[in-house]
């Protein structure tokens, strides 16, 4: 049955730092690379080298411009994938029981052999975290790399989701958000981690760390053109030595 578990033993998820993300899309590429050849059906592309290419992705990076009332606009890169919600609306709408939330770690998964590709779970998700694969006709979504995180064939350092492992700016963190003492929970508490669309009542497990305030350039004191002006003043008023001699000679010519 596609009921949600009342409680999960752990709440595995991601913490995404909007302050340090540089928008390089490496997480998008590594996600597609790992997930197209491991758990479930491949992530197909349609017309990949043509004029109208499109494909299935489990993680996409948006970019937003935020304009404060005063001061310069800020550009925020915004990776978005399944948030593994505690109150996942995608699970309860599923007519076949293909969508489920795991009791042991809270990961939301799709049993692809039960999926009829009706698309209702994607309708129910406010975040756009689910996409029907056009070639396979089944729903694809982030698995939190369930085939990596417990995989004892991989070195321990690699037992994290592919996006986390690859992020070059350290903007992605993985851990148990149900444990208040875990590194990720501490990070969320310290940096004021937030939910996306909290009013939708989905209780996302994944948290986003807001960008820190931007540094501001100091304003120039009144009467000065630039704060660097004192440094630009000439060191010597009258040229001396060789340059002084050259200056005098050229004046005479």
């Amino acid at each position, binding site marked *: 049955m596609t009921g949600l578990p009342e409680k999960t033993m752990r709440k595995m998820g991601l913490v995404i730092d909007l302050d340090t993300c540089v928008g390089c899309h490496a997480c998008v590429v590594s996600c597609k690379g790992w997930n197209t050849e491991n758990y479930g059906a491949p992530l197909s592309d349609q017309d990949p080298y043509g004029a109208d290419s*499109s494909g299935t992705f489990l993680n*996409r990076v948006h970019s937003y411009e935020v304009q404060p009332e005063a001061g310069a606009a800020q550009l925020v890169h915004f990776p978005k994938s399944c948030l593994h919600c505690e109150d996942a609306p995608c699970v309860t709408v*599923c007519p076949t*029981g293909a969508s489920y939330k795991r009791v042991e770690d809270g990961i939301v998964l799709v049993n692809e052999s039960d999926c009829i*590709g*009706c698309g209702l779970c994607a309708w129910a998700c406010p975040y756009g975290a689910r996409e*029907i694969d056009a070639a396979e006709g089944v729903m694809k979504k982030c698995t939190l790399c369930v085939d990596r995180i417990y995989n004892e064939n991989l070195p321990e350092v690699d037992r994290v989701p592919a996006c986390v492992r690859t992020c070059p700016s350290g903007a992605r963190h993985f851990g148990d958000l149900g444990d208040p003492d875990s590194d990720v929970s501490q990070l969320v508490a310290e940096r004021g981690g937030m939910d*996306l669309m909290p009013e*939708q009542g989905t209780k996302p497990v994944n948290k986003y760390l807001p960008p820190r305030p931007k540094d501001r350039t100091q304003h120039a004191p009144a009467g000065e053109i630039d704060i660097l002006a004192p440094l630009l003043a000439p060191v010597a008023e009258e040229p001396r030595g060789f340059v002084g001699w050259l200056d005098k000679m050229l004046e005479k010519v």
Partner: protein
Amino acid sequence: MHPAPSVIVFTTLSGLGFGLLFWLGLGMPASEGWVAAVFFAIAFGLSVGGLLASTFHLGRPERALKAFSQWRTSWLSREAVCSVAALLVMGLYAALVVLAGVRVDWLGWIGAALSAGTVFTTSMIYAQMKTVPRWNTALTPALFLAVSLGGGALLAGQVGIAPWLLTLAAAVQLAWWVRGDRALAQSGTDMASATGLGHIGAVRAFESPHSGNNYLLREFVHVVGRKHGVKLRAIAMSLGYMVPVLVLVLPFSHLMALLAVIAHLAGMAASRWLFFAEAEHVVGLYYGKR
């Protein structure tokens, strides 16, 4: 939302078919023999045809039987169960009426309840979607039921009650449109809550994740054709409700009744097209398309 033809055909035809089954189950009209056979054939043709059309939008239609299993949580599953139950009960009722000339009243009442229940479960698939504020209202099941029972009464030749039900449906339709046009703004979901960046300043989508198209944009960010929204609403209102009501209050003729049914179907198709095309899914916010 993408107005998939299969889903528009399904909700329009099956809604009308189950509406007709509702009245036939109540014995209105309590016809017999060949007349009853034709009524039941039209009702089953519309409802079964609609259900079959709905399977065309599935990615894996061969696994459709699995959709009967999750009735405890899923409105889509409840719809599947309810529709098959309605068809089986009404099938038995119809067979007894047509073949044996026996009318089992209580069987018809159960069938009528299941038929109305099917329309209700269909409407709840949409009404439950918090992600589509325009649909997320009790007015959605009210609209589906009023349209289905009104159209069914029209098809069943219930000239007494049909004009009243169709007028009621038109009123609900108007209320649904008026509320729907403000629904997204009133839902509390906007760029600020979607990105969580509203505390810094005004948020604008700067760059999309991809320069190309994707499933989410195709399915949820349909914008083409909205510019004709007002014209289509006028078509839906006049053909779907006003023409049939007008025909019903005029002296009865079979040709005019057929005209009324065709006008009603065309109007409902326009209304259902708008139901999807005008629905704003909140995921569009992430793409700056709202």
